[in-house]
């Protein structure tokens, strides 16, 4: 028997990445109306690999093996079916050429098909969460269970939403192509928005399922990297968002302590931040710089850079951060930004000033946990522990997130014990 060890030596997430590559490639060839067939055939190919490789060893080129097996299964089914949904010429072209696939062109082709699908999944005719689910299923190779855990939904809800989204994708006028000309920047914006949402969904702290959530973040980064590597798509915003994600992800290991308790920026052990990611963030931030207008992503990335580069919480360049928040607020006025700005404002101009500003934010925002958590922090800074306690209690009442709740309870107990 050949040595079965190599199945464990296959790189992490190999099946996940390969299945999405093969799916997008075959859908590119057989048309999006055959998406389900392609998905089934790729799933079968994975199952075959799972069954055969431990016995026979991993083939020399596992990617090509998976592609060939899946492709043959699609061809078999299409040939056998009465209703030929795929174009006849495609099939004959395939049969003729499948044995002599040039690996270099195949790589480029796989890449193009992948990007085409990225734009299709993020087509404006498909709405919000459906776009994320399509991306995670088709481009990231996540299973329903993994998506359900990452998005904190039921598996059943994800399955149904995916079926609906797929129907939409198949029936709509969505083309499998990278948009050109003026359309490109608009469509790229949507793709980035989806990736950004994906990252935030993964980054939102949660005591449970930390791993699958991190996966979501790394996946968002991987997709952005693929965009950044394409000469047509290497837009400043793509680099800005990538920089932002690198800086945030550099803190993954320090966001919770050994017991799973949330650690805020001032509590984190900065020596454990991932230097490599911070460096990459710096590189992409540099690539995102351009003359003229600064995008919200760019401003956010710069704020994240200030934190990532600061040797300690006290030595953070709060003045610069405040200036950046001011610009960001103008660009993208929203309460979360306004609230986060208050922390910088407190550091630069004092907490009493920030408390005055907080009243303005309060006036036009709904009750939310962040508002009271920050209010509590500000009262603590000015030494009003009675009010700080009240604010934290409100925040605890309003948050749904266990990790945040525990963190606030901890803060509260610290105030009481002082």
């Amino acid at each position, binding site marked *: *028997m050949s040595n079965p060890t190599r199945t464990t030596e296959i790189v992490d997430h190999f099946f996940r990445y390969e299945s999405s590559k093969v799916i997008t490639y075959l859908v590119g060839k057989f048309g999006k109306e055959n998406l389900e067939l392609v998905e089934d055939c790729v799933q079968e190919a994975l199952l075959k690999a799972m069954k055969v490789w431990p016995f026979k060893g991993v083939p020399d080129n596992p990617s090509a093996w998976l592609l060939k097996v899946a492709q043959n299964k699609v061809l078999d089914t299409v040939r056998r079916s009465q209703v030929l949904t795929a174009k006849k010429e495609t099939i004959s072209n395939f049969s003729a050429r499948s044995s002599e696939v040039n690996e270099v062109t195949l790589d480029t082709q796989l890449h193009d098909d992948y990007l085409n699908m990225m734009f299709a999944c993020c087509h404006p005719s498909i709405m919000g969460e459906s776009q994320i689910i399509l991306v995670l299923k088709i481009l990231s190779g996540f299973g329903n269970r993994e998506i359900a855990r990452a998005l904190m939904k039921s598996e059943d809800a994800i399955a149904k939403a995916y079926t609906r989204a797929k129907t939409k994708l198949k029936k709509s006028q969505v083309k499998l192509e990278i948009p050109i000309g003026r359309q490109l920047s608009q469509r790229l914006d949507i793709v980035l928005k989806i990736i950004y949402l994906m990252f935030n969904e993964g980054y939102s702290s949660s005591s449970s399922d930390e791993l699958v959530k991190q996966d979501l973040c790394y996946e968002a980064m991987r997709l952005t990297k693929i965009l950044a590597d394409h000469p047509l798509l290497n837009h400043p915003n793509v680099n800005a968002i990538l920089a932002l994600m690198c800086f945030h992800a550099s803190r993954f290991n320090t966001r919770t302590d050994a017991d799973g308790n949330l650690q805020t920026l001032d509590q984190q052990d900065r020596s454990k931040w991932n230097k490599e990611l911070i460096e990459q963030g710096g590189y992409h931030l540099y690539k995102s710089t351009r003359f003229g207008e600064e995008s919200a992503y760019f401003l956010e990335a710069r704020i994240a850079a200030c934190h990532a580069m600061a040797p300690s919480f006290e030595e953070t360049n709060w003045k610069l951060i405040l200036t950046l928040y001011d610009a960001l607020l103008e660009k993208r006025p929203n309460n979360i930004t306004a609230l986060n700005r208050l922390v910088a404002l407190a550091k630069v101009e004092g907490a009493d000033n920030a408390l005055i500003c907080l009243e303005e934010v309060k006036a036009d925002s709904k009750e939310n946990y962040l508002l009271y958590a920050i209010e509590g922090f500000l009262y603590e800074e000015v030494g009003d522990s009675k009010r700080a306690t009240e604010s934290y209690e409100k925040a605890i009442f309003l948050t749904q997130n266990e990790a945040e709740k525990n963190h606030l309870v901890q803060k509260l107990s610290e105030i009481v014990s002082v």
Partner: protein
Amino acid sequence: MKEFMYLFRGGDARRAEQSPEEAQQHMAKWGQWMHQLAQDGVLKAGQPLQTDGKVVEKAGEIVTDGPFAEGKEVVGGFLIVKAETIEGAVEISKGCPIFEHGGTTEVREILEM
């Protein structure tokens, strides 16, 4: 030292539901388990089997697609291992990843001359 055959049955339904990530992890477990058997000098041979096949009866008078007897699980593969006793062979089989998917392993001693 006697030889025993493991016949792996079932687990297909659960396997079909796996995400690519889960499939890869499951495959890695099979690889690890079989590698360990090889390292321990226990593993003799083994092959995976195609799911569908034919059942031939009455010298070919009846040939049916099989071997899907009602309610019975299909054999997905086999291994031949070396052990002193059937109890030992059963013990070794306990680490098999097929149990994760609700499959079974039949352990049979191979008859010698």
